[in-house]
């Protein structure tokens, strides 16, 4: 049995008033005794986020390669007439997202005012579909909101700088049930369900038909002392109406989406399930991650969006683009975690085992971080560095001459276009583009290559990674 990739969805949620609750903005504000709301006032408008060329590439309205033709900085060159509706994605405004957060909340954690409570979703069929399935909780009591915020039990929520409600903690001292952590988890759930709903609506798939959901989101839902206990997947499935789907989470820092795709395809090939969805919700903690560098250099705060992805894999009908599980890259624990060691394990070795060359893959989807976000922070152009590494490896293997490195990068690569949401840039946002191209015959194969920074958790000095080949 073969696992075919039938559909992909890439969504963005514009959330400027949540940037203050990103990990870095929050900690820096506390450290400097500032109000995060003061530092992160006046961020991009929804229209600006929609017109931003990398965001248009993310939702499928612009081939990523075309970004190279748009003068830099991209934030000064928005696309005229840009739409929040994309070929395989969508951008949701913040006030609609508050409605999704409220729908995601089954414990009365979120308290929104009259104006923002209920079914405030504009122009998104996918988001509206989620609201029909969930009942909004409780009523708004102004004194309760201000009382809880004043006592430090709740975080204020804003729309255009105005207080519209709060999110409360659900335990007086358990940090896993702290208001900011709960908001982070709700944001991952709601944006993940939004991505899944978009996939279902766009592809005209019945939610009830989904058998299995794997979440690769970046959060640590948990407690009664199982920190990161997980299964956000099942809560996303529930929210999206996938009542017949079981679920589980797959974690490996930013490499998780590729593992999740491989696991889903393997379950299908083994006949355990007939179809599966891989879903990744957005990371609130990563909002404004490099914002201080941007503010210092006069760059707009570009990390004002949550990203979400969803992919539908199925055994039927038996045609179309598929995941080739004979070419899966993995990075063994004994392999050095150097850039070279990772590139060998994830690209060179799995291709060599199948008797294939590096240049035989038409396009590589590597870590596709938007360079305009990374460069001001001194983090380099991540996508470009990855493509140089692949080209250098092709030189080492005698496939191309050293002078051909720029041509290799041009042919097999693309500029980064994804927001710095960790797992979201990890190769997979190209899959929507790849599907379209494979269906029209303009692309034969793409290898998705993701890396994960295990060392950030301080349990190992290792990195990790995973890759898989998708073929027409």
């Amino acid at each position, binding site marked *: 049995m073969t696992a075919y990739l039938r559909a992909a969805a890439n969504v963005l949620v514009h959330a400027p008033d949540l940037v203050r609750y990103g990990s870095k903005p929050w900690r820096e504000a506390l450290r400097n005794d500032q109000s995060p709301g003061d530092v992160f006032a006046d961020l991009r408008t929804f229209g600006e986020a929609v017109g931003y060329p990398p965001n248009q590439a993310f939702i499928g309205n612009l081939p990523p390669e075309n970004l190279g033709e748009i003068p830099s900085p991209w934030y000064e060159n928005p696309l005229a007439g840009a739409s929040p509706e994309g070929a395989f994605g969508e951008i949701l405004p913040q006030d609609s997202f508050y409605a999704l957060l409220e729908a995601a909340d089954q414990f009365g954690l979120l308290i929104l005012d009259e104006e923002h409570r209920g079914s405030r979703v504009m122009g998104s069929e996918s988001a509206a579909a989620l609201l029909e399935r969930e009942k909004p909780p409780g009523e708004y009591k102004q004194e309760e909101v201000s009382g809880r915020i004043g006592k430090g039990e709740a975080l204020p929520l804003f729309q255009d700088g105005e207080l519209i409600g709060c999110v409360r903690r659900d335990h007086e001292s358990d940090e896993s049930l702290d208001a900011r952590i709960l908001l982070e988890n709700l944001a991952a759930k709601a944006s993940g369900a939004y991505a899944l709903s978009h996939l279902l609506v766009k592809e005209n798939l019945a939610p009830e038909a989904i058998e299995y959901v794997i979440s690769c989101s970046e959060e640590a839902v948990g407690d009664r002392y199982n920190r990161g206990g997980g299964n956000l997947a099942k809560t996303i499935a529930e929210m999206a109406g996938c009542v017949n789907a079981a679920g589980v989470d797959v974690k490996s820092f930013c490499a998780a989406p590729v593992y999740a795709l491989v696991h889903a395809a393997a379950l299908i090939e083994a006949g355990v399930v007939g179809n599966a969805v891989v879903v990744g919700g957005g990371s609130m903690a990563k909002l404004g991650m490099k914002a201080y560098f941007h503010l210092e250099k006069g760059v707009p705060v570009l990390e004002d969006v949550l990203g979400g992805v969803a992919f539908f894999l199925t055994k039927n009908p038996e045609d179309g683009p598929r995941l080739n599980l004979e070419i899966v890259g993995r990075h063994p624990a004994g392999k050095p975690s*150097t*850039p*070279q060691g990772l*590139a060998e394990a994830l690209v060179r070795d799995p291709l060599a085992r199948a008797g294939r060359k590096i240049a035989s893959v038409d396009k590589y989807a590597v870590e596709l971080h938007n360079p305009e976000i990374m*460069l001001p*922070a*001194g*983090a*380099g152009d991540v996508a470009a*560095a990855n493509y*140089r*590494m692949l*080209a*250098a*490896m092709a*030189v*080492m293997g005698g496939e191309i001459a*050293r002078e051909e*490195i720029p041509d290799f990068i041009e042919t097999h690569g693309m500029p980064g276009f994804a927001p710095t949401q960790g797992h979201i840039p990890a190769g997979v946002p190209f899959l929507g583009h790849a599907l379209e191209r494979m269906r029209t015959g303009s692309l034969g194969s793409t290898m998705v290559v993701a890396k994960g920074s295990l060392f950030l958790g301080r349990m190992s000095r290792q990195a990790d990674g995973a890759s898989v080949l998708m073929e027409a």
Partner: protein
Amino acid sequence: MDLENQAAIKSIADEIGSENLMVVLGMPGEGLRLAVETLTTGDPSWAGPLAGVSLGLPVFHILEEKVRTRVPEELYAEKLLMMEMVLDLPQIESDLADMRAAG
């Protein structure tokens, strides 16, 4: 430069003396510039253990000509040759020259 690395280098410098220590870096670009500044004049972000501490350490990049030519050929081919193709060597040399000229 992250705080743990700053602490580690400060601790070695305290133990053996900064005159007995040199640092060989591997990163390019802005990261290189910040690391050089941190290890010579002190942490420019004033956040780490080297804030206000001018160790004045000699700092090199592993792919600078005068360093890379000292790496045994076999080891170089195994560990560094690919990175030589990945990183912009002339830029690294010129960034370091500028920083050294600026003192």
